[in-house]
Every structure is written in C-alpha cells, then in structure tokens.
C-alpha cells in the first residue's frame, strides 16, 4: 500500500464524517434545494474530465468525443445546479406577509 492511497482514504473517511455532520443539520424543509446543490457539487466530476482531456497527449477522436460529452455533462451539473438552487431558495421567504401587514396598517 503506497502512502498516497492511504492518505486519500483518510481524506475520504474524514469527508464522509464531515458530510454526515453538516447534512444532518439541514432541515427537511430545505431538502430539495439541498439535493439540487449537491447535484451542482457532484458536477465536480468536470475536474476529472478536464484532467484526462487536458493531460492526454494524442487521445484520438473517439476519446475526445467521450471527454467533451463528459465536460458538457459536468458543466450542466455545475452551472444548472447552482442556478436552480439559487432560484429555489429565492422562493423561501421569511416572516408571514410583513410587507402586506404594513401596507394594511398604512392604508
């Protein structure tokens, strides 16, 4: 077993615990935005596509096509995921009709 692998496994396990702790604090109400945010986060696979495509020397057309599709998929995840989450979170509004009540009082 080489040390790089062992280190990475350590990071993997710690990240798992961190994930469990952080995510278990998210209330049920925000679980849909949470899922779309994690959609965006797993778009991180775009990094893998960038590395394999960018570091390859002469990959051949078929490999290029596979990797460009992978980049497209990953980018859709990242961009789409964060935008949808933002749009959704914008719908959750605080305090019931604060504005509405004030308007009534002044009216």
């Amino acid at each position: 077993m080489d040390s790089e692998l062992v280190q990475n496994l350590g990071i993997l396990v710690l990240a798992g615990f961190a994930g469990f702790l952080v995510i278990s604090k998210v209330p049920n109400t925000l679980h849909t935005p949470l899922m779309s945010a994690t959609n965006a986060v797993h778009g991180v696979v775009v990094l893998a596509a960038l590395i394999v495509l960018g570091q390859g020397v002469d990959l051949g057309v078929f490999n290029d096509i596979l990797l460009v599709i992978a980049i497209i998929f990953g980018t859709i995840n990242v961009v789409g995921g964060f935008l949808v989450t933002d749009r959704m979170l914008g719908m959750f509004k605080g305090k019931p009709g604060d504005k509405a009540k004030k308007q009534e009082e002044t009216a």
Partner: protein
Amino acid sequence: MSWIQDPAFINILYIISFSLFIYGLMKLTGPKTAVQGNWIAAAGMGIAVVATLLIRGMSNWWLIALGVVVGTVISIPSAYKVKMTAMPQMVALFNGLGGGAIALISWAQFRDTGGFAEEELSKVIASLFAALVGSISFWGSNVAFGKLQEILPGKPIGLGRLQQPVNLLTFVAAVVCAVAIASGQTSEWWMIGLLVASAILGLMVVLPIGGADMPVVISLLNALTGLSAAAKGIALDNTALIVAGMIVGASGSILTSLMAKAMNRSIPAIVAGGFGGGGTGGGGDTGGEDRHVNSTSAADTAIQMAYAGNVVVVPGYGLAVAQAQHLVKEMSELLEQKGINVSYAIHPVAGRMPGHMNVLLAEADVPYEALKEMDEINSQFGQTDVSLVIGANDVTNPAAETNPDSPIYGMPILKVNQSQSVIVLKRSMSPGFAGIENELYYDPKTAMLFGDAKSSVADIVEELKQL
C-alpha cells in the same frame, strides 16, 4: 510565474475549494443563509476548475472550451425555465449526468492508457468502481426521469420472480468484467462489457420501482453519483473530487435513509422489488362493510374554519397535481386576516422527492415559518381546531399506529386524528396509490368534501370572502 503551476499550490487551491463546499453546505440550515451558502459553494467550484486548468501541461483548450460553452448554454435556460413541480425530474436528470460523465471519463481513460496497463492496481480498482456505479446511476436516473416526466409508465415494470436472479446475474457480469480488467486484461470489450452490464443493472433496478418510491430512488441515485465521483478522485489523486464526492455521497445516504424511514420501508426491500403498485392488496379487514362517512360542503368548511383558532393544512402530492398551491395560500391569507393561525403540516414524503412540498408551497409565497415538519406539528394537533387535508392520504392514516395488520403499520404519520375536527378534500372514496383504506375517513369527527382539490379550495375561498 511558475509557482502557480506548482502541484503544492494547486493542492492548496483544492483545499480552499473543498472548504468552501463544506462551509457553503453548512449554511443550508435556514433559507436566508442558504442563498449565500449556495454561492459560497459555487465559488469553491470556480476555484477548483481554475486550479485544474493551471495544472502543468494542460492542452486541448479548444475542446475544453467547447464542452464548457455547450454545457453552459444548455444549462442556463433549463435552470430558469424548469417548473417547481418538475424539480424531481430535473434532479434525477442531473444525478444521471454526473454518473454518466464519470462512466465516460473512465472509458476514455481506459482507452488512453491501453487498458490501465501502467496504472497502480488501487487506482484501477477505484476507476472501475467509479465506472460501474456511474453507469448504474446514469441509466437508473434516466429511468427515474422518464417515470417522473411520465414518458415511461409510473407503474412498476418488472420480471416478477425472475427480477432478482436477473439483477444478480447482471451484477455478477459487471464484477467479472471489472475483475478481468484489474487482473490485467486490456481488451476494450471488457470495459464495454462492464459499462453495458452496469447499464442493464441500472435499468433493471429502477424500472420495477413504482412512482410512490421515487423519493427514495432519487436520493439513492444521488448518493451513488457522489460515491462514484469520490472513487474517481482516489483514482486521479484529486482531493477536491474525493471530498466533494464523499459529501454528496453522505448527503444522498442520509436522505435515502430518512425517506425510507418516513415510508417505513427498508432500502433493500425497495431496491429488490417494486412497491408503489402491487403487494398491498389485502390491507386490513375493513373493506367489506358499509361504513358511514360524513360529507360536507365548501360553505360549511369555510364557516368551520372561520370560527377556529388554529387551522392546520395538510398538503399532499394531490395538491401539487391539482396546481392548487396558490389558492391554498389565498385561503390562508383570508383566514389570517380573521386572526386565525394557519400552519402547514408536511410529511417527509409529501411530493416526489425530499422536501418537494416545501418548495411548491414556498413558490406560492407561503412563509417559511408556517411550514412545519412532522415531529413539530404532531405535538400541536391536540390544540388544532380544524385540520384540512388536501390531496394527502396514507400519511394521515391512523391505521399506521393502531392496526398491526395494515401494510403501512409502523410508518410515521401526521396525527391529524388528534385535532378537534378534520376536513378531507378528496375526489372520491377510492384509496390512494398504496391501495389502503384510510381509517381517518370513517372517524366521526372527519367530514369529507368531495370534488377536485382546486375547485373545492376555490369554492372555500369564495365562501370565506363572503363571511
């Protein structure tokens, strides 16, 4: 300026970026901080991408730009246009894209390295795991998308008794291909075999699962995509991928177990065979006799609520199907103007994915504070004068607590029957998708308001306006 291409510097950027992922998700505890948290995580992603592009020897810039531009152009309009009722489909599709990307990357890497010939065994195994799980997730998610989008029938499609042996065989076939590659086979057919077998497995596992189990399936596929990203991170020695993938894996796992618990179903049982359709026929011995059901009118409902102190609305997926969220909100406003407390009791599996109902109500401008989780609202039903059940069925069935013979026995429910009176908006007396008779409807304090949810609520609103 060579230091910016130093591997140590790039790794520091990765550490910053995964810290931002975690910090961003930590802010998802409330809707106000969550908006900021989302952008913090997005900034982390931006840094991770820049760091990757800095790696020494990057080439193929045009192809990279092509992928990024096409991806962005596709995603922006779909992110802004998708309807909130369609969020489960969108999330399913996005899960699939992530898994599909990993499967494609692993395939390309296999071709590029002559069948992982020079790679360390541990990295080969991680890559193969990523490819297998990624391919399952891609095809499974596409089926889930098809079912939710109603391109495919929502009913379970399966092979019956043959299902489990066939699933097991395809799984074994995928593992055999993986073992062959890991032990030095370099023929591309092994890799294609691996991808095809896991694709079939993904289809076979999700096709027999009914619409009602979708919240569990989506969460599970979310977890799988995360885990395969983490495995790919091990294979490429990339910390950003490992951490981000693992967090998504953890998140998906938590949601999967929450959803399964809320439906009182074990995850293996859901994956092993279709629920949401069959298997629940003989639900208790209550069906035969003619039992009395009270029915009521929109006018009476309006009066009853207008003289109440506390009203709890119990929305179910039927409300979303009827697109009645906005009318319900209008009704609540009219009641609040009369000084009545209105809150919403939301069961974890209301809707087609975790938290779906909350988003649908938030879209209709229902304030965040009025949305109550099951545990919180269950202690308040005792002080509730009127519970208004709209399009929810099984999650209100007291048989889950009282009748050990009921197929839903043990499922956590909203204890609607503890409130002073209950009004159920329902089209007819037909049982819900699980086919189980709801005891609540025969309770003497329950009144049924028959009709389409949307027009019933509209009638109540009209009556309230006249009071």
